């Protein structure tokens, strides 16, 4: 049986762990608010962009459609972009994204497709490296700063370069969608060829295009990729902090429970020892 001193040390160490998780929880909560705001304020742009592209795409179709919109017409060579965070301590946040990515890749491989991977975030790289390192094309890190255009642009440019050189047919983006503080769902969506929502509501308004539809689409589609990546990064960041906050809250609570149990056990042991000593003294006295 552990001695009282051992238990006291153990309680001390759990207490300092609790302090750390508590601090991390508060940091995550503070950062969550900011990144949530960033994710929300980036939404209008992405939404308008999608709407305009949908309008344009309705008018441009057939063989003249740009590559980024129509795709190569094949479905053989896939490029999967997996976006996670750099750091852990956020419960199942990163594992969830990586699991979805793995399933997605496995499904594609099962259909006999070629799959290559780009990872964004250290966790995606580390967790996928074991099985798929031969399929890596490029890896990126998120860094400590809040995601911004400077971060999204190089990734988008690399994607475009790869796609336009004709090496891939389909590009998919796997990242976490931020729904609320308690729910973040990993999602996979197609990035290229662009997904165009077909609107049910009436005919699209007639627009005049300046210079012309093709030129505008050619300028818009690459920009759309950048924006999609940026919004994935922002949502990921917000989701990461939310998940971290929840995970650290749980950890703090567990540490508290552990401390309580240990304290009770320690008190019992100490009391048992005192009682034992008393009995020894009394029986010693009565023997005289």
């Amino acid at each position: 049986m552990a001695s009282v001193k051992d238990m006291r040390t153990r309680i001390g160490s759990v207490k300092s762990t609790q302090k750390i998780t508590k601090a991390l929880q508060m940091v995550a909560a503070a950062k969550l608010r900011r990144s949530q705001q960033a994710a929300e304020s980036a939404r209008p742009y992405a939404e308008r962009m999608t709407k305009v592209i949908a309008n344009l795409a309705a008018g441009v179709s057939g063989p003249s459609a740009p590559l980024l919109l129509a795709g190569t017409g094949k479905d053989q060579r896939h490029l999967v972009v997996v976006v996670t965070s750099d750091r852990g301590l956020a419960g199942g946040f990163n594992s969830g994204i990586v699991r979805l990515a793995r399933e997605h890749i496995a499904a594609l491989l099962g259909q006999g497709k070629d799959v290559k991977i780009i990872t964004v975030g250290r966790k995606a790289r580390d967790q996928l490296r074991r099985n798929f390192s031969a399929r890596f094309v490029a890896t990126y890190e998120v860094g400590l700063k809040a995601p911004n255009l400077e971060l999204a642009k190089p990734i988008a440019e690399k994607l475009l370069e790869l796609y336009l050189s004709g090496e891939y047919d389909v590009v998919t983006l796997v990242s976490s969608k931020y729904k609320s503080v308690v729910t973040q769902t990993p999602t996979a969506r197609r990035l290229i060829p662009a997904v165009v929502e077909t609107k049910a509501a009436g005919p699209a308004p007639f627009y005049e295009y300046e210079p012309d539809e093709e030129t505008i689409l050619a300028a818009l589609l690459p920009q759309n990729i950048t924006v999609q990546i940026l919004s994935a990064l922002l949502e990921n960041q917000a989701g990461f902090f939310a998940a971290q906050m929840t995970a650290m809250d749980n950890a703090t609570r567990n540490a508290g429970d552990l401390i309580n149990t240990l304290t009770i056990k320690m008190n019992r042991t100490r009391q048992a020892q005192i009682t034992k000593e008393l009995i020894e003294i009394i029986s010693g006295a009565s023997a005289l």
Partner: protein
Amino acid sequence: MADKISFELVSPERLLLSEEADMVTLPGAEGDMGVMAGHMPLVTTLRPGVIDVKGGSQSDRRYFVLRGFAEVNPTKLTVLAEEAIPMAQVDAAVLDQRIRDAEEDILQAKTEGIRAKAVETANSLKAMRAGL
């Protein structure tokens, strides 16, 4: 005064401005244009230049935009700018920096299309710099 047009200026990172205005002047790809309520539906790309908002709910405002595009319909004007800075924060130093960036892009351009774009950007920026 005629009806106002609702104007929104959005950059990838946030919504910069959303208000009712009498007229908004845009640096369109094929020349500047003034947009008022009742304008015909139009989508255009923008070159680097100045957006001028007249008769908004607040005093007149000017923004410097670096590329982007605008969607116009009779009641609403949406500008999606790649980057937008209030004119008050733009001075010669900022423009010089942009011109240098654009010139670097020209040198590094891999395809003719990208090069042409960068040259165009640099030219518009220089014109602005000269007019400052």
